[in-house]
């Protein structure tokens, strides 16, 4: 029910908000898909990744390069970009999942840094620090997505579909085994589960949705720069999940909204907005260590029981 209300409100937003806020809402949706894909690993798999920007960035770069270098249309470029990124996820998963915990964190970081460095240095392909320009948004069924409102609805449809499919994934029989592997991996092996394979499948699935967020990202900005592959981007996604509440469905959405609203609002008024972002995270971690969504639920329950 709450989800339906949220969806109706999201659908009505362009009727009341100006172009600036519609665009901001589109960015939040894109970032929410990215954060939700991180949440699959962190929240449901217990695998802290610090390299998930790799999938957003490569999804975006492959789509852009296919258009610019090979002249592909969106209809071909989009599935190929998602496929290529997911295949990369298959290979990276083999490497990163040699460890869990801190080891996994460092391996994901290292792998994404390789790509970030390559995007910077391979100037003939990526135009390095200038980034790739001259990209166009797709026009599904002939609809022009260049205005804020139509793009918002496009992002909303893709975003809702993505998050619904990720919710089905964690709510499925497989999702139950994923949570089991997070809490008691040894026990799960003793019950007949191949814990490594469960994690690898989740890793690949998360890289698929990372690629989808990358497509939305490059469609929105019509531009791609190596910074989208950077550690900072991965860390922002991770922070959004932690701030919103990892292992909850709404957490990454709320976390994505917090990060982007702060970034956009605060940067308009103060120069050191990064510091403010830091303070907000410290506040959340101190007062709601489980994240905003579970934290507010806890406070609400306490309020109701007192009233």
């Amino acid at each position, binding site marked *: 029910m709450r989800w339906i209300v949220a969806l109706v409100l999201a659908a009505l937003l362009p009727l009341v908000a100006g172009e600036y806020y519609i665009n901001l809402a589109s960015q939040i949706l894109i970032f929410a898909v990215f954060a939700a894909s991180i949440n699959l690993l962190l929240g449901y798999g217990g695998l802290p990744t610090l390299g998930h920007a790799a999938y957003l960035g490569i999804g975006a770069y492959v789509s852009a390069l296919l258009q610019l270098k090979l002249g592909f249309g969106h209809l071909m470029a989009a599935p190929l970009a998602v496929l290529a990124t997911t295949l990369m996820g298959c290979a990276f998963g083999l490497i990163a999942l040699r460890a869990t915990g801190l080891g996994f964190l460092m391996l994901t970081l290292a792998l994404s840094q390789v790509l970030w460095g390559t995007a910077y240095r391979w100037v003939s392909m990526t135009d390095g620090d200038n980034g790739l320009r001259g990209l166009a948004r797709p026009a599904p069924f002939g609809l022009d997505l260049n205005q804020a409102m139509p793009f918002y609805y496009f992002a909303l449809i893709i975003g809702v579909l993505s998050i619904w499919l990720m919710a*089905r*994934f964690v*709510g*499925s*029989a*497989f*999702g*139950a*085994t994923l949570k*089991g592997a997070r*809490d*008691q991996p*040894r*026990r*799960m*092996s*003793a*019950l*007949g*589960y*191949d*814990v490594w394979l469960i994690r690898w*499948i989740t890793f690949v*699935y998360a890289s698929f949705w990372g690629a989808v967020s990358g497509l939305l990202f490059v469609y929105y900005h019509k531009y791609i720069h190596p910074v989208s592959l950077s550690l900072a981007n991965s860390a922002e996604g991770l922070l959004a999940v932690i701030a919103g509440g990892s292992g909850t469905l709404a957490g990454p959405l709320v976390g994505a909204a917090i990060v982007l609203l702060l970034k956009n609002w605060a940067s308009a008024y103060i120069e050191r907005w990064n510091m403010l972002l830091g303070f907000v995270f410290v506040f959340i971690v101190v007062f709601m260590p489980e994240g905003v969504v579970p934290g507010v639920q806890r406070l609400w329950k306490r309020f109701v029981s007192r009233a």
Partner: protein
Amino acid sequence: MEALRIQSLKKAFGGLPAIADVSLRVEAGERRLIIGPNGAGKTTLFNLLTGDLPRDAGSIELFGLEVSRLATHARVHMGLARTYQIITLFPKDTLEHNVALSLLGLSRTRWNTFGRLPQRFLEEARTVLARVGLESVARRPIAEVAYGEKRRAEIAMALAQKPRVLLLDEPLAGLSREERAQVKTLIGGIPRETTVVMIEHDMDTALDMADRITVLHYGRVIVEGTRAEVVADPKTREVYLGH
């Protein structure tokens, strides 16, 4: 037919042999008790059998098939199940969910990434829990039930998989006399299609449950035989009973 055949199994931790040299044969349908003082290598032996720990040397055969190179989950699919000395259930989940996870472990449905956990798993889980007398607490989280009930839930999870060989790691440890009687009845009721190998630290509590008994000491089998043979053997008295 031998359910379990272990030959010259060895495992050392940093030069310290936990399992120095163990050879063991357990017939299908047998109830085998493995006893020994603390540090005798009992739990290490179980961990080697299940694959929780890799062996240093030796072979492990399950119904004539060599399994020592297989991963833990692969051995489970060959009919091996175990319980743990320290309870490792999923505390926030209900008993029925815990048992359903056990049932799901051997089902292809575990790879279904779209559909919910089918109701039939929860129904079957409730049937299994009813068999061990836990139907009244089936929908309560593990964290909220008594210790003895957790132990029975642990055994129920293993039994739900209808294993061919069941390894029970100190199933009676930490239980009150009443709870102990309940668990003993439960173990006594396991059908003979399942071979049971049980570790116990406390010799007296479990002797009457076994067909044959193996005494382990410093990672070696020092005595093996029927209850009468083992009790009568002076080596048992020396290392285990302490007189």
